[in-house]
């Protein structure tokens, strides 16, 4: 088991395993850095609606490709379809939460479940299209890395690289928009465009992640790394960087673990590695971790019992006053 794991880490357990490991690492890095802004804008779960609403698009793309005479298994075609229906889903969430009285969380839940339900209907239509026709579209639910092709890995690599590049170029307006939309618009940032850009980035990550992680769990890859990174730093750039590293690490380690033992599905393992990083951050973070917090409480208690004045809130004096320079408000 350990041997196999080390081998997989060093890309020596075969061509397919190496492809998966590289692809997963790139995907994780892209997801972590793109998810940062959604998380800071407090819209992390919009990506869940986004991910679930890809299913009908995948099915429609498959049906169209079969009707046009193909096999329907062209990954690029399927991903194009998934992006179209994810875009429609996010648009409806936005429309419901701005044009009706429904809050955004209800809109997210409604779109997530109905789009997914419609996708399942289409899946059963596909099953009945030709007797014995196995489309294998179910593998997009939880991801499937068996038989990943070089083209697939290339698609993920290019898509991920583009997403990371975009985030790096636009980190300033993106960060301003996520903290203080009103202020951002007074200094000339086009908030609407930035919100749209965040959605498009998340959509890109979801679409390229369908193959490896699957649509049910991809939301975790967008949410967990930024939340974990937020424990270690108060600066946006570092949150983004760390989230990218955590995401990449989850993808790489997860792929290696799943390659080293049987019956280890890649997608869930990647998410669980991410969850482990999150738990470590929650416990060990020097600023807001469980250990530090408990120690601080105990010290305050001891001082109270001894009759000493209690410390003023740590960091209260030295805390940054505004978030304009990319500092986060410590109370967040």
């Amino acid at each position, binding site marked *: 088991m350990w041997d196999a794991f080390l081998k997989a880490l060093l890309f020596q357990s075969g061509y397919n395993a190496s492809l998966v490991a590289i692809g997963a690492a790139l995907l994780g890095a892209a997801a972590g850095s793109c998810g940062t802004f959604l998380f800071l804008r407090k819209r992390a779960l919009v990506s869940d609606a986004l991910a679930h609403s890809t299913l009908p698009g995948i099915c429609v793309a498959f049906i169209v490709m079969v009707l046009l005479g193909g096999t329907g298994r062209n990954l690029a075609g399927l991903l194009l379809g998934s992006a179209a229906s994810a875009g429609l889903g996010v648009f409806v969430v936005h429309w419901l939460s701005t044009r009706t*009285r429904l809050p955004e969380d209800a809109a997210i839940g409604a779109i997530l*479940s109905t789009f*997914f339900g419609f996708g*399942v209907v289409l899946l059963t239509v596909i099953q009945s299209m030709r007797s014995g026709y196995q489309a294998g579209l179910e593998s997009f639910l939880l991801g499937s890395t068996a038989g990943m092709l070089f083209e697939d890995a290339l698609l993920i690599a290019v898509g991920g690289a583009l997403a990371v590049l975009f985030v790096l170029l636009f980190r300033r307006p993106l960060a301003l928009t996520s903290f203080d939309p009103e202020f951002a618009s007074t200094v000339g940032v086009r908030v609407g465009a930035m919100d749209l850009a965040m959605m498009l980035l998340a959509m890109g990550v979801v679409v390229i992640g369908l193959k490896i992680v699957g649509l049910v769990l991809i939301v975790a890859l967008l949410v967990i790394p930024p939340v974990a990174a937020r424990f270690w730093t108060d600066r946006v750039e570092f949150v983004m960087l760390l989230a990218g590293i955590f995401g990449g690490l989850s993808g790489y380690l997860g792929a290696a673990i799943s390659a080293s033992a049987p019956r280890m599905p890649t997608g869930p393992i990647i998410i669980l590695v991410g*969850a482990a990083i999150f738990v470590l951050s929650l416990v060990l973070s020097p600023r807001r971790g469980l250990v530090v917090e408990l120690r601080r409480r105990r010290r305050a208690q001891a001082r109270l019992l001894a009759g000493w004045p209690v410390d003023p809130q740590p960091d209260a004096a030295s805390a940054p006053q505004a978030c304009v320079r990319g500092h986060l408000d410590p109370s967040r």
Partner: protein
Amino acid sequence: MGAEFVQLSLTPLLIAVLAAVACALPGNFLLLRRQALVGDAISHVVLPGIVLAFLISGTLATGPVLLGAMAAAVFAAVLIELVKRVGKVEPGAAMGVVFSSLFAAGVLLLEQTDTSGVHLDVEHALYGNLESLIWLAADGWHSLLDPAALKRMPTELFRMGAVAILIAVLTVLFWRPLKLSTFDEGFARTVGVPTLLVSFALVVVTAIAVVAAFDAVGSIIVIAMLICPPAAARLMTNRLEVQVVWSVVFAILSAVGGYVLGGYGPLWLGSEYAVSAAGMIATVSGVILLCAALWGPCRKRIGEPVAS
């Protein structure tokens, strides 16, 4: 509408209706409390609970499964609260972290366990097996009066019926504290309503509805029915009483319409295969919500002009 209908469609249809109503009732309060996604979270974490219960007890009997799923739901609720409080993470992200991690753990456990002998897999968890809940012993409407045939009805029907009745009774009994604490928590506390207990009880009741419905109809219907009918009802009225009635009507409409469209719709179109009833029920509930969002009399926020 003869013997074949009673045998093949009556029980799944009834189960779907009961599940839809059982989910829609607590969904109304979750929606108003901005906790609509709690149902989503619960229906994800039910999976690891059920797999663990199976691992420990070795069966998929109702008791252990229900217990495992409930335990997982409560565990997840506590975990979300912990992440929110200790890590000062915003609620949406905290929920996302916890439920997706637990779902991933559930999938892994499922892959590692030998479940070839029982009916337990991820697809079943997502879509349920509504179509398979048929009543083979029936041979016509008169079977409803035949005790021997009634005994061989799918047990899911009785379980779902009991849960739906329980939830309806609880909703009526605790109407006042529920309503008060949903709209004005501070006021509710001053007149002596234990608001914390009420919100905890609401989550537990939701979990009961989710777990019972999950087993029979899968998690898509559960999430759709927790959110869509109450959301559509919210756009029809400004009174909670009326909203709850609307939500029940919409839930029943979705269940019946979805089941009929899924089971018979393709046949009308000339295909020989039915499509997923669970998926169709969710789709119909979404269409109802869309109609309410386009034409519902109270679709705007108060203060905004209604004419658009």
